[in-house]
């Protein structure tokens, strides 16, 4: 399974709408980095509105992809994390403090624009 990555001007938009298995998550990580490289995108929004579970592995993959993209020069914002997912992550002991987040896609794009203009 491949997660589609859409390009919009300088941004890449991803909406994860499936129950992520480990392999799909790893594949997505690689696909996103390749897409950043080939498109020259400076900002990425990963929307998690439809994701109803993030376990420690998926959290690690998402956290890593933010750091990896940052190394390449692209800012990533995670958006739409559900209340139940946020509570579960904290129970798990995963705080994702260095990961930029926003309430929804719209807020995410605003946040990206602000960060990139600084």
């Amino acid at each position, binding site marked *: 399974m491949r997660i589609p990555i859409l390009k919009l001007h300088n941004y890449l938009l991803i909406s994860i709408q499936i*129950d*992520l*298995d*480990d*392999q799909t998550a790893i594949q997505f990580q690689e696909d996103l980095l390749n897409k950043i490289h080939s498109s020259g995108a400076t900002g990425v929004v990963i929307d998690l509105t439809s994701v*109803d*579970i*993030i*376990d*420690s*592995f998926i*959290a*690690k993959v998402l956290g890593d992809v933010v750091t990896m993209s940052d190394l390449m020069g692209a800012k990533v914002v995670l958006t739409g994390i*559900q*209340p*139940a*997912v946020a*509570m*579960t992550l904290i*129970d*798990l*002991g*995963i705080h994702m403090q260095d990961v930029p987040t926003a309430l929804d896609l719209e807020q995410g794009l605003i946040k990206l624009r602000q960060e990139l203009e600084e």
Partner: protein
Amino acid sequence: MDFQSCVNIKKEWDIVGARQLGRDIAKKIGFGTVDQARIATAISELARNIYLYAGSGKVCFEAIDDMNHKGLSIIAVDEGPGIEELSQVMEDGFSTSGGLGAGLPGVKRLMDEFDIVSEQGRGTEIKVVKWLR
């Protein structure tokens, strides 16, 4: 006790299968969205541990419904190498696989009851329970 169903964990995709079945059962029992997410996440961690460290095993679900208690009991069993240092794996941040080390201590916090029995060379059995409030 209503029924028991098990998911064999042999390949990576079985992790997803186990947590989906667990979530469905939790929903039927009457757990809310947040507890469904907690239960599904705990199952995911338990199933991944089986897949990563033992290679294969199973995760079984049992609805508990006695006089004044309703809940879901989950048992994860494998015949893998067992856990050498139990106290270590229950520490936050301890990992031998390069993960976050959030797995077992995380599962303990997500659920209401947590029991682990592990024998080196024999395997590991983890039983967790979430009560319906």
